[in-house]
């Protein structure tokens, strides 16, 4: 009996944890069924009009956007956008609490044009997504994170709207009930880059800077490029710069090689790691040798050594001072 009770309690605790832990996805569907938004018939000389629907949905009392637990909006819809005598521009937007999350831009060519109707959406989950159709009626799915102020505890508002600019026509959007708010999403990729200044080497005119790149975000960082941005009169990057894919928490080390064109004094190098959806920069100051002889390498070593030992010495002195404090 006692064993069974313990097992039940353990199971309940596990269920509770799995339900509340960051990373457990939770979907909310604010639409009970498919919903239609129709832009009104153009009247007068208006060149811009808006139509939208609103629905409310509930979020937990501690709901907020990030840094661990992120909310997103998935929009699944069908658009009926007839062709008219001129090219047209339509935007379908999904917002929460007035903050735009998904923006779908649709370019409808004029009647008789051989060009298809094109749409595109951009967000930090999928980057740029796009499609094209030669039909007047077609389906679109797009998603993105909500804005920080698009998430609040308790009652929230979902707005889905259609805007037209230029030539107006009666467009219809059918929003499928599969459209949803999802919580527990991993956050965007966050790349960080640091130069390993203690391991910088200068041999002849070659400067080699090892750098560590880490993805501290919740999603994979794709096509990460690590590039030194230099004063082109002083340094020149050498060799091809490949790209990396970093999973969340993954670290990689790259060696950046540059050729010194001039050999005098200091120069600043910005080391940039940029992926499809994240970037970071580390700034280092390089003391270039006065010439390519041993003494110049020595000067760099002296500077780097000083950079290491002076702070280390200060820390040691501080520790000793702490130790010498009389006890009371």
């Amino acid at each position, binding site marked *: 009996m006692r064993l069974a009770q313990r097992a039940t309690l353990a199971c309940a605790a596990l269920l509770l944890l799995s339900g509340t832990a960051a990373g457990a996805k939770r979907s909310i569907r604010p639409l009970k069924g498919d919903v239609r938004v129709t832009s009104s018939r153009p009247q007068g000389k208006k*060149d811009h009009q808006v139509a939208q629907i609103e629905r409310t949905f509930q979020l937990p009392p501690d709901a907020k956007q990030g840094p661990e637990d992120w909310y997103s909006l998935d929009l699944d819809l069908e658009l009926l956008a007839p062709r008219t005598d001129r090219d047209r521009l339509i935007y379908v937007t999904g917002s929460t609490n*007035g903050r735009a999350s998904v923006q779908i831009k649709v370019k409808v060519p004029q009647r008789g044009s051989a060009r298809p109707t094109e749409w*595109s959406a951009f967000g930090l989950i999928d980057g740029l997504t796009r499609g094209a159709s030669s039909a007047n009626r077609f389906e679109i799915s797009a998603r993105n994170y909500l804005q920080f102020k698009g998430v609040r505890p308790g009652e929230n508002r979902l707005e889905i709207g259609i805007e037209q600019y230029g030539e107006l026509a009666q467009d219809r959007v059918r929003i499928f009930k599969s459209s949803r708010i999802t919580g527990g999403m991993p956050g*965007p990729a966050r790349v960080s880059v640091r130069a390993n200044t203690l391991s910088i080497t200068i041999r002849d005119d070659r400067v080699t800077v090892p750098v560590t790149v880490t993805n501290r975000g919740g999603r994979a960082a794709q096509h990460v490029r690590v590039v030194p941005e230099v004063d082109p009169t002083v340094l020149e990057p050498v060799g091809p710069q490949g790209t990396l894919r970093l999973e969340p928490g993954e670290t990689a080390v790259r060696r950046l090689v540059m050729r010194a064109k001039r050999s005098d004094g200091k120069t600043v190098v910005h080391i940039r790691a940029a992926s499809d959806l994240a*970037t970071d920069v580390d700034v280092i100051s390089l003391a270039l040798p006065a010439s390519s002889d041993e003494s110049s390498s020595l000067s760099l070593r002296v500077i780097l050594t000083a950079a290491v030992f002076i702070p280390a010495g200060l820390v040691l002195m501080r520790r000793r001072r702490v130790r010498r404090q009389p006890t009371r």
Partner: protein
Amino acid sequence: MRIRMIVLAAVACIGALFVATAHAATTYHLAAQRLNEDSFDNYDFNSASVSSSNVDWPVGLFFYNNAEVEKIKAGLSQSYFYPGDTQNGRLDNSFGWFFDDDGGRKTRVCSVGNYDDHYRIYADPDHGNRNWTAGVGFYVIGTTHVDGNECGGGTAYFGFSEPAEDRLGSVARSVTNWTVYDDNYAMNNYEAYRAEGNHWWLNNGNATMFRLP
């Protein structure tokens, strides 16, 4: 072929005689502005090169929440209809710096004995002419200025960004559901009233914000 080249050169020379351009200018306030994970420079440039002596005009326009380049141009097209010369904005939309060029829109084709207002707007061309951060949503930055006597009728002059920004704000208020917040975003690009050749600086350092629904 040679005749065609000569004709083209002649046309270019005549064009250069009649259409004045702003002199290159220098600022002491060029600086990258941070916006959540993104960044952008607070001036645009005469070419795709970052230099305080290569700037054109200070960033004084900030469209946000649901902005996009073509949407803004369409929204303002009743007053700003005509294309202008291209300049370059520099941004970092969370995945590295890039330049975006834009000719923007003007209120007149080319002013003679008068002036027109001219704005240019910049965003990420590789991602559908928009940027997005969780802090402000879809955003686009821009500059604006006056083109005076550009095609004759007096001494050509360019600049006066601040009054041009005010007038653009007034136009944007008439666009359905757009909300305008005058001088509401510190861009750290104050420029006192002064001239560098025909380039007239005047900017209070605070950009006007345009909230698109």
